[in-house]
């Protein structure tokens, strides 16, 4: 087994950003990083048309200051106001890195989970719709972790905890139950059980393990991957940077590109560019599923839903009350939902609508509506 060299000069979380010499140089320095017990490395993949580092220096954002920047890296300090932090003001640093995709940036923070959850994530979220986290479907999470597992060989991944949503039976007053579960299982088993039990993951915690005589032994590296495209790890960042980060960036870029430029205003002749959500079986055979979807759309957070038709076919109009994007949702097939972006429709808002359907109704495959006008 390859032994890890003991670093001659360890660096702490406060020192790691002291010199910015490009992404690769920074990644290399992580091998010398010594984390305190309550610290972890946090990475978020963020999609935005404008570079994220530019969005963060808009005057309307309070408490954010750019400290240093290079061609591809920008270091920010962020003052978290007292009301978010037990009455105490706190300041931390985080880094924004450009990726190979101009529409995708990385946010890197090293420290406590408390500050990540109460400081960095809400800050990025407040940039919506100009910037947004991607979302990963259940299938994409499995694919990403599968890919990671392959790259780890002969080591492996052991799922130790997950938070998920479970669909409750039709008779229940609540539609979903939030579940946090501790386990010790391999990747395929966890996903297969999730399918059987009708649950889907919001975040998934796993250990990197050595497989010794089929008994997995933890290497001490623990990672949490969120379905919103961010993760934390307690070590081996150099490995994650060339595997998980790369996959998440690729996936996010693809997703953002897919949802972009679908507003009718900027399309030639103002033609609609609909999106299709396909399911692998006939979902809308019974009208109760249309009713269920209608109810789901009415619960779209910070949005307005106008029901134009709900039986026998469904037609609702959705407005995102944050950026005034709008889209019509149609059910004109037992296996598909049609999302028709209207005049004003940002990529972030369309992604949010589709994610709302995925999280609260069911996940499907998104695709572009092919313009084949075949009369049957």
């Amino acid at each position, binding site marked *: 087994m390859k032994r890890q060299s003991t670093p001659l000069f360890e660096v702490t979380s406060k020192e790691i950003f002291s010199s910015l010499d490009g992404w690769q140089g920074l990644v290399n320095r992580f091998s010398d990083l010594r984390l305190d017990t309550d610290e972890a490395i946090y990475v978020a993949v963020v999609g935005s048309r404008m570079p994220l580092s530019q969005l963060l220096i808009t005057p309307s954002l309070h408490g954010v200051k750019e400290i240093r920047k290079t061609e591809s890296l920008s270091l920010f300090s962020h003052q978290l106001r007292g009301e978010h932090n037990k009455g105490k003001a706190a300041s931390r640093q985080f880094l924004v890195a450009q990726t190979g995709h101009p529409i995708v940036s990385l946010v890197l923070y090293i420290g406590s989970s408390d500050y990540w959850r109460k400081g960095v994530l809400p800050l990025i*979220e407040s940039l919506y719709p100009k910037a947004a986290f991607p979302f990963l479907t259940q299938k994409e999470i499995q694919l990403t972790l599968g890919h990671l597992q392959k790259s780890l060989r002969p080591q492996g991944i052991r799922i130790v905890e997950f938070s998920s949503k479970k669909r409750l039976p039709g008779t229940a007053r609540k539609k979903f139950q939030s579940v946090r579960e501790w386990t010790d299982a391999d990747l395929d088993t966890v996903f297969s059980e999730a399918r059987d039990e009708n649950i889907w993951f919001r975040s998934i915690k796993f250990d990197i393990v050595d497989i010794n005589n089929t008994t997995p032994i933890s290497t001490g590296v623990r990672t949490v991957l969120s379905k919103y495209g961010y993760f934390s790890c307690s070590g081996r960042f150099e490995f994650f940077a060339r595997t998980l980060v790369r996959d998440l960036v690729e996936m996010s870029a693809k997703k953002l590109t897919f949802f972009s430029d679908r507003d009718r205003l900027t399309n030639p002749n103002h*033609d609609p560019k*609909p999106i299709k959500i396909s399911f692998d079986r006939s979902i809308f055979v019974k009208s109760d599923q249309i009713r269920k979807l209608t109810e789901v759309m009415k619960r779209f957070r910070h949005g307005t839903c106008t029901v134009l038709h709900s039986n026998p076919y469904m037609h609702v109009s959705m407005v995102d009350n944050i*950026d*005034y994007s709008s889209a019509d949702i*149609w059910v004109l097939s*037992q296996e598909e939902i*049609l999302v028709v972006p209207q005049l004003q429709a940002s990529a972030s808002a369309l992604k*949010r609508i589709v994610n709302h359907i995925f999280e609260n109704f069911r996940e499907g495959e998104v695709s572009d509506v092919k313009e084949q006008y075949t009369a*049957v």
Partner: protein
Amino acid sequence: MFATLALVNEVRWDSQTKTLNPAVRFEVGRRLTTSNNNKISPSTDVTPDCTIQCNSSQGIVAEAKLGLPRNSDHWEGDFEQLLKYDDELAGWWNSGETIYRHDIVALVPIERAVLFTDNLQTFLQSNGYELERKTSVVGFFKKSGVKDFIGLKKEWGSLSDSKLGSELRKTKLIAFDKILVEYRDRKFVDSEPPLVYLLQIIWDNIFTVYAARERTDNPSGSTTFKVTVDQVAEEIRQNYGFPSTGDRSPEIPKKRWVTKALSTLVEFGMAKRIRQDHYEGVLPRYHGRLS
């Protein structure tokens, strides 16, 4: 709307090339003019729901009857409307605005198609009318299956294009989503829509555009914007209705429908009238965390 566009689509569809024939012209609510010899209204303008010009010599005039009264005694007006179209109508896209021949199609809900046909024939006989042009009654219906379709079935009559007539006799199904995409999500025809429907489109799809343009990086509360009736009407025509393409071409929606809708918003306290045809709209805006 879907039934009318489904018929247009069927006329345009070339089964050999599997494409839509770009040479077929059509317009919703086109103004045509009757001749001196018209049996019902001589030398008058008429506006069929849809005028389709298949080629330079052949056309179709279609009238869609979505809301036929339950009492068939009240259908006489609809029969007279069809008779108005049984004439040398002017207003086609040819020089001289005339066409060699055109057919008449009545689009009615499938459940009324037989009764409509029977009553039409009785009406013609009892009043001594005879239709000179090929006329047909085509029933429309929605068919749900794996996909949702609008169905067209010819219940009675004939068409000059025998192939089209034969296809419609056997029933044609046209996918809803194809109509939605190909015809650019048109939401209006040449008759006044329910007020609430127009209000929803103005509020969700037009005001949102104006409000988004007004946004600043430091917004607070709601967004206020100024609009004119002409501006809103034209925006709807371009995107959800039909802009006028010439003298005979209507503007859908009409300006007065939009004026009525904006006045209603003022009544509800959701807009302000600044002066004639000028309004100020206000849209609420959410600020805060998404999760």
